[in-house]
C-alpha cells in the first residue's frame, strides 16, 4: 500500500451520502426510533454529526441540545445556535450548572485542586495538561495541574495520583449529566441519542464511559479528525466552527485537546496512526511526514499505549461467566 500525504483524503460527497443512508437505516431498523438528539457544543464533531442527521432525517427530526455549565465558554452556545439556524433544526438550552452543583461536582473538584494548591479558590481557573513533546521522547503521559488567577498569574505542578483521580472523577460528572439530559430529550420523543466522538476520541479513549461515550449511534466514530474536517467543509458548516481550536470545554481555564489528551497536532497524529494501522515502515512514514524515524517510533508507541490503556472504556459490562 502506498502511503502519501493524501492517504487520509476522502471523497466527502460520497462519504456524506453513505453516512446519511446508514444513519437513516440504523435509526429506523436497528434502533426503531424516528429522530435524533445531538448534544451540540459548537465543536467540529457535534457540528458534523448534527448536520449529517439533519440531512439524513430532515431537520424537523433533529434536536440539538446545548448543555452549558459555569465553566463553559459562551462561544460554545453562540456557535451551536448559529449551526442550528443554518441547518434548520431546533436548539434547546439546558444549563446543567445547578445539577452539577447538586452532585458536588465543583466542590469535589476544588477540594482536589486545593490538595495541590492550598491557595486555590473558585475565582481562579484551572486546567490539566499532558506533555506535548511526545515525538521527541518515548514519554509516559502524566498530568500537570495549572491554576490561573484573574490577573493572569499562573502556577503549575505535576499532579499526585489522588488529586488527579478526584479532579477527573468530578469533572466526568459533567459528561455523565449531559448524557442523562440527552436521554431525557430522546426518550420523551422516542428518538435516538447520537454520540459525536470521532475515531481519535473513540479508539484512544478520549471520552467518558457512560458520559459522552453513552449513545445509541456514533456516526463518525470510524473517521479520523482530519476527515471530520473534510466533511465539515463539504457540509459548509459555519467557518468559525471549522477554525475554532478544539478544546475540552470542561475545565475553567481553556485547554486544547492537544494539551489535555492527544499531545500532538491532529494532522501528524492521524497520519502516524494511519501509518501504524497499515504497518507502514517508520522510515517511509518519516519521509512522508517530514519527521525523523525516531520521532515516528515515539509517535507509534504513544498511540499504541493510549489505545491499549483505554481498552476497558470500550468494553460493555462484563458478565462473570
Amino acid at each position, binding site marked *: 500500500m502506498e502511503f502519501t500525504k493524501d492517504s487520509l483524503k476522502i471523497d466527502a460527497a460520497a462519504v456524506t451520502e453513505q453516512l446519511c443512508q446508514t444513519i437513516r437505516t440504523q435509526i429506523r431498523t436497528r434502533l426503531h426510533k424516528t429522530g435524533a438528539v445531538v448534544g451540540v457544543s459548537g465543536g467540529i464533531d457535534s457540528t458534523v454529526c448534527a448536520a449529517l442527521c439533519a440531512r439524513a432525517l430532515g431537520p424537523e427530526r433533529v434536536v440539538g441540545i446545548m448543555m452549558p455549565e459555569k465553566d463553559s465558554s459562551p462561544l460554545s452556545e453562540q456557535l451551536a445556535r448559529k449551526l442550528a439556524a443554518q441547518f434548520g433544526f431546533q436548539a434547546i438550552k439546558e444549563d446543567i450548572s445547578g445539577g452539577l452543583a447538586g452532585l458536588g461536582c465543583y466542590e469535589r473538584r476544588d477540594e482536589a485542586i486545593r490538595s495541590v494548591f492550598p491557595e486555590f479558590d473558585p475565582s481562579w481557573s484551572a486546567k490539566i495538561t499532558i506533555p506535548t513533546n511526545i515525538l521527541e*521522547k518515548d*514519554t*509516559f*503521559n*502524566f498530568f500537570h495541574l495549572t491554576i490561573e488567577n484573574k490577573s493572569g498569574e499562573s502556577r503549575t505542578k505535576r499532579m*499526585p*495520583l489522588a488529586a488527579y483521580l478526584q479532579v477527573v472523577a468530578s469533572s466526568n460528572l459533567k459528561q455523565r449529566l449531559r448524557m442523562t439530559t440527552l436521554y431525557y430529550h430522546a426518550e420523551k420523543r422516542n428518538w435516538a441519542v447520537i454520540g459525536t466522538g470521532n475515531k481519535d476520541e473513540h479508539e484512544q479513549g478520549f471520552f467518558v464511559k457512560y458520559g459522552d461515550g453513552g449513545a445509541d449511534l456514533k456516526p463518525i466514530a470510524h473517521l479520523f479528525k482530519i476527515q471530520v474536517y473534510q466533511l465539515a467543509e463539504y457540509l459548509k458548516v459555519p467557518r468559525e466552527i471549522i477554525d475554532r481550536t478544539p478544546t475540552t470545554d470542561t475545565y475553567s481555564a481553556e485547554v486544547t485537546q492537544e494539551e489535555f489528551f492527544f499531545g500532538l497536532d491532529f494532522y501528524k497524529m492521524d497520519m502516524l496512526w494511519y501509518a501504524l494501522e497499515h504497518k507502514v515502515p517508520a522510515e517511509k512514514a518519516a519521509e512522508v511526514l517530514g519527521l525523523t524515524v525516531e520521532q515516528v517510533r515515539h509517535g507509534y*508507541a504513544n498511540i499504541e499505549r*493510549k489505545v*491499549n490503556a483505554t481498552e476497558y472504556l470500550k468494553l460493555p459490562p462484563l458478565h462473570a461467566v
Partner: protein
Amino acid sequence: MTIDQTVLRKELRQFITDSFLIGDDQVVFADTDSFMKNGIIDSTGVLELTAHLEEKYSVTPSDDEMLPANLDSIDNLVNFIQRKLSATAAQ
C-alpha cells in the same frame, strides 16, 4: 542511601503484584518485561508507581525522567532507583 539490588528487585516485584495484580503471584512476568505491553499497569498505574517510589525510596522522577526506559519493567526500575540514590548520595 543504597539498597541491595536483590532486595530492591524483590520489593518492587511484591509491590507490582500486590498493587496491580491484586496479589496474584501466579502471574508470570520477567524482570525485563514491559508492564505496559503486558497489561500489568496503565497510565494511571504509572502515577501509582511513581507515588510508591517517592514514599518508599524518596525517589521522585522529574518530568524528563517519566520514561518507559526508567519505569516500565523491574530491571528499568531497579537501575533507575539505584542511579537516583547514588546521585543523591554523591551530593
